[in-house]
């Protein structure tokens, strides 16, 4: 009997040792964005694994790029990057938020990437007075919940939707517009806003599902309606195949999509059907941006900067500029963020009282897809 007990205890000890070493292994590695001696931290919160990882990765990489640049330039005020993987799931986000709040060295959070997790964890950040800057959550009501800590570096659906409507009506001179959204809150928000702006020209609305791959029923309906323009409010994962299948089904309408499809993934998905598609985005073209973000990103990660990468880079730099200027606590950081007014790579970064990008600096651009590249077309004024 004693021997069994002894053996069990040994087993437990071995297991504990294993867990212990396993835990130590990664912490040695985390030094690559600033060595262990860096006091202050900023966090990136968004999906790194799971179905939505494709959208989180460019954001994470852009933040990492910003942090690495900062650490190279200011070794004495170096910053550790914390990666909070919420899988885009609002049921996971609050725990991560509360953990970030508990660590007083965390001075800012880039994210949460999605509106759902932001809704679920906003109260926690607010209670911990930890400033957050999302690079991608566009649901309009996030800024009206009374959170002083919430900011975002891109226009919300309410700013992009009307501009899209105006563009389709005035520049494309469309008389019949078909709306398709993907039932995500991003997609429905945009399609509602665009629909309001487009008025009578909307001849139909269809909703598809995230992860849907076969759009034949939608194609059939759109074809019968014979619109001039199809506006798809959603992300590139569904947008690519949808554009491809619309064209294959004989729909001749111009395909227009929002920033959610401004990604090489859309071109991969749509292939030749991407040619002539138009993307609207509350971001300025890379060639008009100051600095070398696009080239640096390409050099660091061997791929083109994806959706929201530029916004995330800007968001990270807001915090990093603060730390470089000597901010050492959250209250000061919040003041710094509120007062920030500087040119970023996606746009001028300046927040209004609710944490939205200042209305006066929001620009919405359209982009053409030509020869498999996304090239700037015009600004919607």
């Amino acid at each position, binding site marked *: 009997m004693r021997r069994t007990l002894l053996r069990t205890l040994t087993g437990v000890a071995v297991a504990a040792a294993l867990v212990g070493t396993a835990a130590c292994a990664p912490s040695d590695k985390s030094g690559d964005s600033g060595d262990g001696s860096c006091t202050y931290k900023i966090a990136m919160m968004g999906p790194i694994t799971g179905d939505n990882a494709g959208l989180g990765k460019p954001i994470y990489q852009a933040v990492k790029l910003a942090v690495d640049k900062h650490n190279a330039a200011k070794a004495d005020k170096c910053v550790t990057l914390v990666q909070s993987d919420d899988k885009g799931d609002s049921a996971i986000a609050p725990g991560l938020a509360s953990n970030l709040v508990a660590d007083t060295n965390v001075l800012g959070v880039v994210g949460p990437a999605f509106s759902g997790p932001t809704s679920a964890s906003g109260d926690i950040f607010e209670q911990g007075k930890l400033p957050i800057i999302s690079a991608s959550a566009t649901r309009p009501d996030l800024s009206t919940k009374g959170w002083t800590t919430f900011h975002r570096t891109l226009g919300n659906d309410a700013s992009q939707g009307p501009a899209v409507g105006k563009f389709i009506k005035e520049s494309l001179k469309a008389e019949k517009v078909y709306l398709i959204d993907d039932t995500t809150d991003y997609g429905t928000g945009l399609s509602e806003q665009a629909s309001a702006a487009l008025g009578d020209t909307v001849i139909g*609305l269809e*909703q*598809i599902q995230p992860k849907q791959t076969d759009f034949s029923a*939608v*194609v059939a309906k759109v074809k019968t309606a014979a619109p001039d323009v199809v506006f798809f409010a959603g992300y590139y994962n569904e947008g690519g*195949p949808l554009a491809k299948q619309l064209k294959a089904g004989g729909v001749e309408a111009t395909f227009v999509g929002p920033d959610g499809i401004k990604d090489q993934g859309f071109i991969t998905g749509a292939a030749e059907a991407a040619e002539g598609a138009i993307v609207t985005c509350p971001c300025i073209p890379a060639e008009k941006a100051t600095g070398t973000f696009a080239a640096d990103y390409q050099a660091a990660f061997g791929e083109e900067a994806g959706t929201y990468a530029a916004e995330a880079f800007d968001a990270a730099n807001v915090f990093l500029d603060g730390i470089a200027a000597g901010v050492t606590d959250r209250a000061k950081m919040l003041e710094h963020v509120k007062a920030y007014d500087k040119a970023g790579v996606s746009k001028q970064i300046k927040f209004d009282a609710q944490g939205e990008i200042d209305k006066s600096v929001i620009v919405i651009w359209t982009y053409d897809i030509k020869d498999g590249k996304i090239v700037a077309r015009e600004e919607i004024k």
Partner: protein
Amino acid sequence: MTYLAAQADSFGDLWHNLADLTVSGLTQGSIYALIALGYTLVYGVLQLINFAHSEVFLVGTFGSIVVWGWLGYASGDGGGVPGLGMVILLLAVGVIVAALISGGTAVLIERVAYRPLRRKNAPRLIFLITAIGASVAIAEFVGVLTDRKPVGVPALVSPTTQWQIDPRDIGLDIQPVNITNLQIGIVLSAVLMWFALDSFLNRTKFGLGIRSVAQNEDTAALMGVNKDRVIMLTFLLGGLAAGVAAVLYNLKIGTVTFNIGFLLGLKAFTAAVLGGIGNLRGALLGGLLLGLAENWGAGFFGSEWMNAVAFVVLIVILMFRPTGLLGDSLGRARA
């Protein structure tokens, strides 16, 4: 809202688009049917839902894309559609490679996740769990390899209209439909593949072996049938069909992501149950019917309810005819 007026007449909507929805439903249904064959074969022999079959299909889609890439045809290189001879060659290579990879994966799953359990005569629920494990592992493996990004399929076939059917000629107010070469090809390939499998099962010695194990495995073993080999063959056949489905899917959809398997597998399984699981003809019928039901349902209720329609149909069918439309059991129905 303004679009509500346009949406007012759902039935008119459905009727108007009926021809188009029917054609696309049949095309979609053909792919379900091919995947359903794999579920049905395995179920017929082992009475086991091979939950990982969706991933057998998934590796087929990626396998064919990779081999086309090696041959110099990748998505978005702007080369346009290659010549007819080249297309036939590429398709043939793609189908063979996808079928082999899918078949190989199916056999591998059987060896690693099922055979040890069969030795222990474990309850079927345990098989379900290892199947889920295999499914997650394979999908995630592909996800890690592809960076979880969509992968494009090279443009091998550009859909061109072969026939136009205009119901207005006979006085029906239905929009005309253009049937493309791709749609014809997909439906034909599915029927051909089904026919080949059906003949294999009914006309060859191997098929006889499978049917005998499906009927009564112990008796079959007594008569000298090598059970393990028969089961492996069953998985292989299902995998081959899934490989063919994978290439057709590639041509039809044009992009693949690591997580497409789950839902598609679920639909294909639904199709198999709908037709009567364990029954090859049932899989074909179930696939086509499910495709139609989904598309008509989407036409009537809107696309966001497409999957719901599929599952409601399933539940209704099972309530009134629990063994599916054509009855179950590979052994009995075909004996």
